């Protein structure tokens, strides 16, 4: 059942956009309004879409070459002078390769750097395992003081980028490569530490984030048609998590399923487990990458093969609510 409060913010979903594209457009738009915004990239501006900003504001765009460690610490230095640096590259390189630079140069001094990492998860597709970040959220969550956000569509991305640009502190924003349906319309408002309950039902709580939201939402709708009504929560704010919303829903359904395009270790599922095991022990099933490396293939083909596509989600929930 559709949550009556969300009617006004849902889009018709015929539009599609990649969240990286929404990022590129939004940051170029914000660059007009705020002259302190600077953008850095490591030779991937045409893929991360920072090229839109680069074209418009060549003086405030810095291509750092294929040198991610340097980029992160340079961004930190820029932030000390009052700039608002947005640093972009693929999520694999923006996290695993530079965890220490982010921790020591950005997070420890609490500097105002926004890491906008694109091409997260298996949904990268054909490039294969070396280019599919499945541990980025785990790494970023474990670093003190970093806000970790994972928008599910173009609208949410735009709102999150606006929010990050106007709120001080280190942010990790996880963006995706492929085109996905636009779930929210422009009335949607992003709030830090808040998720959105899109569907309501007593049988289970399904929580998803980022690329997986449009797939998990479809699974929840189809289950609802079959008489299995769920709470469906989109959770863009992974750190801080919307604890209130998860606790409220889990208290009612007593069964939680999480879905994410990430290793089941350390991501959204872990965050939900950490919360519930302390405050409301209920059964949690984590769906996502089962601690394996990715592979080449088409995004949907991979997600199916790794067992967290729409049908797998439906089957899992059916088996649990029986």
């Amino acid at each position, binding site marked *: 059942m559709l949550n009556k409060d969300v009617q006004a913010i849902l889009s018709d979903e015929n539009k599609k956009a990649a969240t990286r594209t929404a990022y590129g457009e939004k940051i170029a738009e914000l660059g007009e309004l705020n002259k302190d915004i600077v953008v850095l990239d490591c030779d991937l501006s045409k893929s991360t879409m920072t090229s839109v900003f680069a074209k418009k504001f060549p003086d405030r765009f810095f291509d750092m070459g294929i040198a991610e460690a340097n980029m992160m610490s*340079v961004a930190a*230095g820029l932030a*000390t*002078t009052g700039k608002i640096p947005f640093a972009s590259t693929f999520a694999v390189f923006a996290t695993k390769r530079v965890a220490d630079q982010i921790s020591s140069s950005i997070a*420890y001094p609490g500097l105002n750097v926004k890491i906008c990492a694109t091409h997260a998860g298996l949904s990268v597709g054909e490039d294969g395992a070396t280019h599919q970040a499945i541990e980025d959220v785990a790494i970023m969550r474990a670093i003190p003081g970093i806000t970790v956000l994972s928008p599910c569509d173009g609208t949410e991305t735009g709102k999150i980028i606006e929010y990050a640009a106007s709120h001080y502190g280190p942010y990790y924003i996880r963006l995706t490569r492929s085109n996905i349906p636009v779930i929210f319309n422009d009335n949607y408002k992003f709030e830090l530490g808040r998720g959105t309950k899109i569907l309501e039902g007593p049988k289970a709580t399904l929580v998803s984030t980022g690329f997986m939201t449009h797939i998990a939402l479809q699974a929840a709708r189809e289950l609802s048609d079959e008489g299995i009504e769920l709470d469906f929560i989109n959770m863009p704010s992974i750190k801080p998590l919307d604890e209130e919303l998860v606790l409220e829903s889990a208290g009612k359904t007593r069964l939680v399923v999480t879905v994410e395009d990430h290793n089941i270790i350390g991501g959204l599922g872990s965050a939900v487990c950490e919360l519930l095991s302390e405050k409301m022990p209920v059964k949690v099933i984590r769906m996502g990458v089962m601690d394996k490396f990715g592979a080449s293939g088409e995004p949907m083909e991979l997600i199916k093969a790794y067992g967290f596509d729409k049908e797998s989600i439906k089957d899992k929930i059916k088996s649990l609510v029986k």
Partner: protein
Amino acid sequence: MDAEMKKMLEGKAEDIRVDIIDMLCESGSGHPGGSLSMADIFSYLYFSGSLNIDPENPRMEDRDRVVLSKGHACPVLYATLAEKGFFEKSHLKTLRKFGSILQGHPDMKKVPGVEMSTGSLGQGLSAAVGMAMGLRLDKKDAHVFAILGDGECDEGQIWEAAMAAAHYELGNLIGILDRNGLQIDGFTKDVMNTEPMIDKWLSFGWHVIEIDAHNFDEIESAISQAKEVKNAPVMIVANSVKGKGVSFMENECGWHGKAPSLEEAEKAKSEIAG
């Protein structure tokens, strides 16, 4: 440099060295070697008037910035900042103790005058590059100084930063390389040879000036020359003696990261004052 100025700077360097020994003796751990090797350069930077800084207003917008990329040598920075009046000297004896503003490696959030948190080697030069880029965007005249270790130059990130600084023609960036020839496991030439150092910086597009790190005339002329270079970063390769001023610490890698005992501290201080 006139004799009076030289005498004053020598006196400040002496005070800084004594403070380094006292604070390390009190804390029971820390890094004397690479702190002592930079005492003369820090004396010059902070007390000759060469830096535009104000201890009363440590975040002044137009200020020059000093980034201690080799963060383990923070005793020299802390002693200098205290001497300059950025914070009370009484803090020095709290070095490395729980609750102190003087962490084992510099924390910019805690200490007035510390421009960047460092400690993980190889990152401070990049941060200095970012500062230089930001200051230039704002059309400020300020300079950014980055103090590097020669062992630190083993880090690939140093050379990433070196490329970027030259690529963006950061004439407002001045590096000072503490070329003391030692790191932890031994001589740099044995652990990981970084020579020919001067050729490396030159080939990366930097302007290079080689000096004796313990000669105030050379320090002065290098820094004033460096400020004149407008379209390229400058590396002052400062040939130094690790542990300078304390005979039993000089050129001994064993004194990289070990605090002196009380007796050793007394001996060290009498040599410094003598």
